[in-house]
C-alpha cells in the first residue's frame, strides 16, 4: 500500500496547477462564461499539447497511457484554476466511451484528433427526469432501412455547440437496459440545440432529436446493449468531477487563508481568531480526506464497475463537503467576496454544478445503500473483518 503521490505525479500536479494559475485571468474566465462555446479553443489546444487530452489513450491513438490518477490530478488543477475546458465532454465522456466500446474505425477516426485537441465530441444521456438509471431514457431509436431514426429530447449535453458529433443514448426495447448508442453529427437535420444557462462555467445544452437519421455505422458497440458502457461513463464522470470538486475546495481554502492573514479587523488580522482557525481547519480537514477518497476512486477506475463503491464514496463526500467549504470560505471573507469581481465567486458557482454532475451526494449514498442491502461484504470492501465477539 502506498497512498501518496510519486515524484512524477507530484511534478505533473505542480505543472498543471502552475499552468492553470497562469493561462487566463478571472476576467477572461467570466467573459468566456458568456459565450456559447464556454471555453477558449486555443487554451484547449495548449492543454492537449501538454498531453492531458490523450493522457489515458493508448500510444497508437496519440495517447500516453497514463493512469486515471494522473488525469484526476490534471482535472483537480484545472478546477483549482477554474479554467473552462471540454475535458469532460470530449475525453471523459465521449473519448473514453469510444475507447471502451467503439469500433476500431471509430477509435481511429476520433481518438487521435481528440488527443491533439482538434476534435470536440460530447454525449447525450440524461433526459427529463434528470436521473441516472436506464429506465429514465425515453428517447427512441428505431431501425429505418440501413440505419436508425432518433426521436426525443436530451438535457445537460456538455459543449454541444462546439462538438462535431454527439453520441446519443436511446431506447430500442421495453426492458430497462435496452439502450443503444449512436454517433450523430452535430449538424444533422432534425437536431436542434438550445442553451441551458446554469451556474458552474459549463456550456450545457438541450438537444432535441426530431426524426434524426443516421447510418448503421453510427452504432457504438452492440445494438441494444450499451447500458454497461454508459454506466462506466457515469462512474468516470463522478470520479473526475470529485477531483474537480477537490480543486474547487483547494482554491477556496487558498483564497481564504490569504485573506485571513491580511484582512485587519479589531486591531489585527482576522486569521488570529480561534473561530477563523476552526473554520479553516475544518475546510482543510475535509479537503484532505476528500482528496484521499478521490485518489482511491481514480485508482479503482481501471477495474470496471468494481470501483463503484469507491467512486460513490468519493462523489458523495466531495459533493457535500466542497460546496460547504465554499460557503465557509465566504463566511470568513464577508462582504468583499460577495462581489462578482472577487475570484471566490467562480468557485462558489462551480461547486453548485460539480456537486450535481454525474449524481449528487444523495444519489451516490443511495447506490451505497443498495450495495449495503444486497452485498454487505462488498459494501465493506477491503475493510471486511470477522467481528471478534458475538453478541447475539
Amino acid at each position, binding site marked *: 500500500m502506498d497512498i501518496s503521490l510519486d515524484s512524477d505525479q507530484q511534478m505533473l500536479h505542480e505543472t498543471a496547477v502552475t499552468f492553470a494559475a497562469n493561462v487566463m485571468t478571472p476576467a477572461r474566465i467570466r467573459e468566456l462564461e458568456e459565450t456559447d462555446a464556454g471555453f477558449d479553443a486555443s487554451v484547449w489546444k495548449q492543454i492537449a499539447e501538454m498531453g492531458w487530452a490523450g493522457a489515458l489513450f493508448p500510444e497508437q491513438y496519440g495517447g500516453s497511457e497514463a493512469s486515471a490518477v494522473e488525469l484526476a490530478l490534471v482535472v483537480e488543477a484545472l478546477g483549482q484554476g477554474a479554467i473552462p475546458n471540454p475535458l469532460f465532454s470530449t475525453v471523459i465522456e465521449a473519448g473514453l466511451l469510444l475507447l471502451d466500446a467503439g469500433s476500431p474505425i471509430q477509435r481511429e477516426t476520433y481518438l487521435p484528433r481528440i488527443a491533439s485537441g482538434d476534435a470536440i465530441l460530447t454525449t447525450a444521456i440524461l433526459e*427529463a427526469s434528470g436521473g441516472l438509471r436506464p429506465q429514465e431514457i425515453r428517447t427512441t431509436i428505431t431501425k429505418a432501412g440501413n440505419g436508425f431514426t432518433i426521436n426525443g429530447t436530451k438535457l445537460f449535453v456538455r459543449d454541444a455547440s462546439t462538438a462535431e458529433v454527439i453520441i446519443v443514448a436511446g431506447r430500442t426495447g421495453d426492458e430497462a437496459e435496452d439502450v443503444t448508442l449512436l454517433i450523430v453529427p452535430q449538424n444533422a437535420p432534425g437536431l436542434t440545440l438550445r442553451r441551458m444557462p446554469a451556474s458552474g462555467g459549463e456550456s450545457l445544452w438541450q438537444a432535441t432529436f426530431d426524426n434524426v437519421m443516421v447510418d448503421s455505422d453510427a452504432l457504438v458497440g452492440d445494438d441494444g446493449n450499451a447500458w454497461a458502457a454508459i454506466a462506466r461513463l457515469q462512474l468516470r464522470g463522478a470520479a473526475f468531477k470529485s477531483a474537480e470538486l477537490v480543486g474547487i475546495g483547494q482554491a477556496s481554502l487558498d483564497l481564504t487563508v490569504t485573506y485571513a492573514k491580511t484582512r485587519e479587523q479589531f486591531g489585527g488580522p482576522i486569521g488570529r481568531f480561534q473561530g477563523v482557525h476552526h473554520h479553516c481547519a475544518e475546510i482543510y480537514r475535509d479537503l484532505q480526506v476528500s482528496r484521499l477518497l478521490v485518489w482511491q476512486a481514480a485508482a479503482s477506475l481501471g477495474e470496471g464497475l468494481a470501483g463503484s463503491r469507491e467512486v460513490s464514496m468519493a462523489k458523495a463526500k466531495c459533493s457535500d463537503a466542497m460546496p460547504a467549504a465554499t460557503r465557509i470560505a465566504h463566511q470568513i471573507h464577508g462582504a468583499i467576496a*460577495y462581489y462578482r469581481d472577487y475570484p471566490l465567486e467562480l468557485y462558489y458557482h462551480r461547486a453548485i454544478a460539480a456537486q450535481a454532475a454525474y449524481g449528487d451526494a444523495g444519489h451516490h449514498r443511495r447506490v451505497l445503500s443498495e450495495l449495503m442491502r444486497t452485498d454487505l461484504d462488498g459494501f465493506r470492501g477491503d475493510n471486511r473483518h470477522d467481528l471478534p465477539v458475538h453478541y447475539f
Partner: protein
Amino acid sequence: MDFKLTAEEQAFRLEVQDFLRRELTPNIWLAHRDPTEQGMWTADFTKAFRRKLGAAGYIGMGWPKEYGGGGRNRIYQTILWDEMEYHRAPGIDRSVTYIPNAVIAFGSDAQKAEFLPKMVRGELSWFVGYSEPEAGSDLANLKTKAVEDGDYFVITGQKAFSSDAHMADYGWVATRTDATSTKHHGLTMFIVDMTLPGVTVSEYPTLAGWTHHAVHFDNVRVHKSMMVGARDQGWKVVMGAIDYERGALASAGLVNYQLDRLLAWCAQPREGAAPLLDDPVVRDELVRLAIEAETAKLASYWLASLSAKGLRPQHESSVALLVKRETSRKFDAAGLELLGQFAPLRAGSPAVALAGEVEVEYRDHLYFQFAAGGFDITRNVVATRGLGLPR
C-alpha cells in the same frame, strides 16, 4: 401561553394575505421582477409598493399613536413581516423598520415632524451608512469624518455595502466627529439628503446577480439640525436600534416558503421515476428541515410575544435571527441536493426547476452569513451579551 393566533390576529393574517395576493398577481410579478435589484423588484415598483403598504396602514401600525401609528403590538407586526417574506413582497427594509424606529427613539422633534409623516405613508427610501471598506464587522474603525463649520457639518468619506443607496432619498450616516478617538466614542449620526452636492453613488455587481452600491461623500455640507442624538454619541444610536432591526429580519416567512417550495418539488410526478416524496430518505431530510423551520417560526413569535408584553429583547433578537438565517441556509443547501441535476440551472433555462429560485437564493443568501452581524459575530454577541462571557 397560547400558540394559536387569536381570532383578530388570524383575521389580520388573512387580510394581509389577501392584500399580497391582490398586489402581487402573476402578471405584476412578470412585469416588475428585476434580478439586478437587491430585492429582486424594480426600484420603481418597490417605491410604489411601499406607498401601498403605507396606504393600507401597515407601515405605522406598530408605531405609537402620537406619531400617526396604529399602536398594534409586535404579534401583528410579525404576522405582517411573515406574510410579506412568504410572498416575497418588496418593501420590508430599513425604510419601514429600522429608520422610523430610530427616528422615534433618537430623533429631534423637528426631525420627527419632518420625516415620520412621510415615512408612515411610505414615501421615503433610505440607505444606512455604517459600513466602510475598512470597517465591516468592526464599526469602531470607521473613518468618514464630519467637521463642524458654522451651522453645518462637512462630511467626507466613503461608505460601502450601501444597500439601495441608488434609490434612497436620505442617508442615515455614521461619521467620526472626534478624530482623536479610534473607538466607539466620537461617532455622530446624521441624516443626509442624497440630493446634496458632493454625494455620489457607485455600483458593484454581486455574485447573486444584483447590483450593490457604495456612497462617496465629498465635502457634503449637512445642516446641524440633521444631526441625530448628541454629538459624539452616535454609537448609542447605532446600537439602540439594531436589536429591533434583527427582530424584523428574523421573521420566518422565508423559511416556510422555502419548505413549501421544496415540498411541492418533491411531490411532483417525474418522467420515468417516482416522486421524490416516495423516498423515505428524502422525507427524513424534509422532516429535519421542517423541524428547523418550526423553530424559526417559534423564535420569531417568541420575540414578538416578549415585545408585546413591553419587554425589550436584546440578545434574544440575535438568537432568533441566527435561527432563521441558519435555517434558511440549511434549506439552500438541501435544495441543491434535492434538485439533483437541475440544481445549477438558472431562470430561463429549458427544464429549469422552481423557476431557478433555489439556485439564485443559494447565492443571494450568502449575505446572511455576514450582513447585520454574520453568523460568527452574532454568536459572539449571544455569548458576551447573552451569557456574559468575557470579550
